[in-house]
């Protein structure tokens, strides 16, 4: 279970929530409400206060690198440091993994500079999944995708959920929230409340 206790930072009122292991939680709310701040605070990318537990292990008790290997996060805007896609993956990406999100098997040889937003988004998702986290936070994972590709990505996420991955999904898409989510929160001006999509 992911447990937040009074997690706070500027722009985010103290937030407490519980998300059971293997479940998909959804956070919705208007732009600028603090969804991204919440995600960054959970993975400890910005200075914050409060406590976070994963399976009753305290975040404060382990190095931040170890914490981020347990809980991954794919931001809405992905970052790329090398020229070629494949150099961002520790292991070669399997062709069927690529096919699962509608990408051809030669995608790892593509130059990053030529990627479309939708391609970046899917590759960043695969990169985060390939790191093998126990839980993953996704910020608008299908915002730049057409309907068919979106369905494929959702199907992939569904399979990973069945395999035991825990998801925290940030989305504007109510239909998607209903399709994937089991637990729902709304965030407004940095305040989190429990509530359906």
């Amino acid at each position, binding site marked *: 279970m992911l447990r937040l206790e009074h997690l706070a930072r500027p722009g985010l009122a103290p937030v407490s929530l519980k998300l059971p292991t293997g479940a998909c939680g959804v956070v919705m709310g208007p732009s600028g409400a603090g969804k991204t701040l919440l995600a960054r605070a959970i*993975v*400890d*990318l*910005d*200075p914050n206060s409060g406590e976070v537990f994963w399976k009753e292990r305290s975040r404060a008790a382990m*190095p*931040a*690198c*170890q914490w*981020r*290997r347990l809980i*991954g*996060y*794919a*931001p809405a*805007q*992905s*970052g*790329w*440091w090398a020229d070629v896609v494949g150099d*961002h993956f*520790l292991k070669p990406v399997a062709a069927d993994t690529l096919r699962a999100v509608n990408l051809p098997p030669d995608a790892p040889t593509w130059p990053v500079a030529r990627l479309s937003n939708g391609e970046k988004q899917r590759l*960043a998702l695969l*990169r*985060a999944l390939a*790191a093998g986290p126990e839980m993953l936070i996704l910020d608008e994972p299908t915002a730049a995708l057409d309907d068919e590709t979106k369905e494929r990505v959702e199907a992939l996420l569904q399979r990973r959920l069945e395999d035991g991955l825990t998801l925290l999904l940030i989305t504007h898409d109510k239909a998607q929230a209903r399709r994937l989510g089991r637990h729902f929160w709304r965030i407004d001006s940095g305040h989190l409340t429990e509530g359906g999509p």
Partner: protein
Amino acid sequence: MNGGYIALSYADVAAAALFLFVAGLLTVLLRLGLATTIALHAARMVAQLLAIGFVLKFIFSASSGWITLAAGAVMAAFAAREIVRRQERPLAGLWRYGLGPAAMLAAGALALVFALTLLLRAEPWHAPRYALPLFGMLLGNSMTGVTLGLNAFTGAIVRERDAIEARLLLGMSRFRALRPFAARALKTGMTPILNAMAASGVISLPGMMTGQILAGVPPVEAVKYQLLIMFLIAGVVALGVIAAVYASLWRLTDERHRLRPDRLQAF
């Protein structure tokens, strides 16, 4: 130093300015509007070099360790000011003034004392005619290296934030996440001295070696001096840039392996 040295008169020096004078006349004739600039810069160079000639004459004849130290301190202060002024994205607070200059000075001073006491062994070891030119060359080069290296590194922190955080999010430590960016900054800072090493002897004769050869020193002796200087300079530049970049890395991240661009000065 044997008898090969040819003393120059002030008239010789003035005659050497003939070509620049002709170029200045040409710019007037062609209405390029550069004559005043050329004249001002030439006059400034004359004033600066004459002044430093007399200052060095005084320091050499005084031959006091304290006066040499004071002269070194003034040189270091000017170099430090350049580093501070030329940072495009400086660290916030006093770090801006401390970090770059400290990196430059620590490496430079260490190499200077090492070379003077163990290699040149002048009498006394801090004799100004060896200490000050050597210090000047070390400072000038490490100043350039540290400035370039810091600008490359802090620029990357600002521009490549998403990429760096993507690496942190995969569970890399702050040192591993920033390693490619530190490597690039080190390379940028060392480019001038690497170029100088590659070009020396083939494309250009280094200024100091040229000076020694003109002063009558046998070429192979001049080469030995030049090699000694180049090794010292390259080492000092590399150490200064590594120190400056890693100190910035340490300051611009924290113990929870977060990137902290908020510790750069706000625009």
